[in-house]
């Protein structure tokens, strides 16, 4: 799976250097229909982000232009009103002479040659950290699009859908595939029930749909699962077990079903489309653009799709080893000619694609005054891959009967008040003691 070098430096660069077959008009109507200038102006309102700037306003629509002028007057240092018939070859000179540092427009095809506007943008994605505070992971256009390459499904007949949010790595990959491939993307609404989203995907004829195995299990549990007829189904973000692969195969017999190994830090490692869980052992240590290794039981990936570095508090943490491999922390085991995923080295729990660090949940449980200590580990779930299971040692044995039920309810209440829903223990078991490993740490193993 070799990926050709990608000369584009940005989304704009890509789109202008590889115009859609149907011309830019189709792109504007298809891919950016929702990104109206009005909404852009709305988003500026809070931060007065254009304060003090020299702003060139280039709008197709007079109403959009009017809203921009009203909003920016008194905030911007200078407003340059581009007339609707302004030939675009004059723009670079205008930008230079008027010292323009911001352009407000719904158009994407500016021939910008001013070097002040051209720089590799850092994309900072958030992922869960041990303490509950998010880790910041830095990508670039090059690293985000490295996995896309020539495998990109092209064309106006490609309609993407994703159960992911586009602000997570898995969803952002789909947004980029849709935009760069000149396709369309049906996004889910905030809080939209899965059945409604499936109905909309069906109505728009979605051809390529992605999500975690848990997203897909949830989709298959919806009465609207028959509303979609995808040609391509992609699973990532969690271990795809044989159960979900078989269920999708029998539900959508016409679809190519592919499970990808990907994480925010490591990028997309590889895709497997043979309908079987795990991945062929022949992929390890093979030559290619994305070499993978298994060292000390865990999967390591080196690719142009790896994140660049961490930002903020994690800045010192190393992302890649001396050979440039990112340790995914996923433990794999070889059985015959295939590798299978066993779980996470750190004890990190993956609940339906969302990460949970046990320490954070234990800290919440330990706030209950009757709790001496607790250990949180991963419990297998056929529906969300894993769930959070807690074992709790009380300071005093509860009296027979009711008390332990009360404690359970109170502990759950504390967790409900301080943790995201996927981090709340699904089960709580009271035990007389917990096993400690060397160095006094809890012996975490699933």
């Amino acid at each position, binding site marked *: 799976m070799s990926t050709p070098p990608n000369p584009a430096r940005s989304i704009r660069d890509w789109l202008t250097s590889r115009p859609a077959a149907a011309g830019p008009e189709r792109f504007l109507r298809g891919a950016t229909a929702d990104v109206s200038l009005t909404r852009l102006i709305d988003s500026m309102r809070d931060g007065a982000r254009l304060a003090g700037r020299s702003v060139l306003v280039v709008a197709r629509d007079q109403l959009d232009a009017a809203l921009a002028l009203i909003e920016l007057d008194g905030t911007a240092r200078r407003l340059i009103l581009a007339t609707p018939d302004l030939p675009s070859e004059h723009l670079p000179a205008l930008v230079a002479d008027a010292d323009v540092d911001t352009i407000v427009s719904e158009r994407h095809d500016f021939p910008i040659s001013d070097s002040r506007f051209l720089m590799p943008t850092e994309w900072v994605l958030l992922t869960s950290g041990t303490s509950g505070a998010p880790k910041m992971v830095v990508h670039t256009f090059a690293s985000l699009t490295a996995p896309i390459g020539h495998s990109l499904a092209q064309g106006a007949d490609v309609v993407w859908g994703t159960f992911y949010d586009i602000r997570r790595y898995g969803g952002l990959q789909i947004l980029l595939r849709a935009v760069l491939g000149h396709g369309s993307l049906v996004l889910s609404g905030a809080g939209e*029930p*899965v*059945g409604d989203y499936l109905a909309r995907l069906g109505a728009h004829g979605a051809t390529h749909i992605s999500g975690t195995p*848990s997203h897909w*299990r*949830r989709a*298959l*549990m*919806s*009465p609207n*699962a028959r509303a979609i007829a995808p040609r391509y189904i992609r699973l990532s973000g969690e271990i795809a*077990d*044989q*159960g979900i692969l*078989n*269920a999708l195969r029998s539900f959508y017999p016409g679809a190519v079903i592919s499970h990808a190994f990907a994480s925010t830090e490591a990028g997309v490692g590889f895709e497997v489309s043979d309908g079987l869980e795990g991945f062929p052992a022949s992929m390890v240590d093979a030559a290619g653009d994305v070499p993978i290794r298994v060292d000390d039981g865990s999967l390591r990936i080196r690719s142009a799709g790896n994140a660049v570095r961490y930002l903020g508090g994690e800045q010192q943490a190393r992302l890649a080893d001396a050979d440039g491999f990112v340790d995914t922390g996923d433990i794999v085991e070889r059985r015959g000619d295939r590798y299978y995923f066993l779980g996470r080295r750190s004890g990190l729990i993956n*609940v*339906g694609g969302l990460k949970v660090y046990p320490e954070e949940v234990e800290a919440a449980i330990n706030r209950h005054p009757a709790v001496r200590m607790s250990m949180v580990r991963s*419990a*297998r*779930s*056929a*529906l*969300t891959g894993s*769930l959070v*299971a807690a074992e709790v040692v009380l300071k005093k044995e509860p009296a027979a009967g009711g008390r332990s039920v009360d404690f359970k*309810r109170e502990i*759950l209440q504390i967790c*409900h008040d301080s943790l995201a*829903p*996927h981090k709340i223990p*699904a*089960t709580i078991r009271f035990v007389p003691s917990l096993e400690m490993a060397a160095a006094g740490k809890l012996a975490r193993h699933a």
Partner: protein
Amino acid sequence: MSVRAAVISQIEQIADEDRKSLPPLTDDLALLDSGLDSLGVAILVARLEEVLGFDPFTESDDVAYPVTLGDFIRFYEHASESRTVDSGLAH
């Protein structure tokens, strides 16, 4: 407690913990419309394993994911019956 009663009681308990109100729990109610989201259904399955001692979803790679509450209860009842038959044969 019957399998059905165990399922209903656990759904009510999980909804109560989430402070969610439940619609009438009829057999043709879509499971994901029951007030439980997919995480809630996963928790339901884990709690039922504690109460009933089995998780029918992990017993085979060929699982039809239940759509309605009735499907879900029948799935558990069927698994419970085949376990009784199996253990009967074993003795």
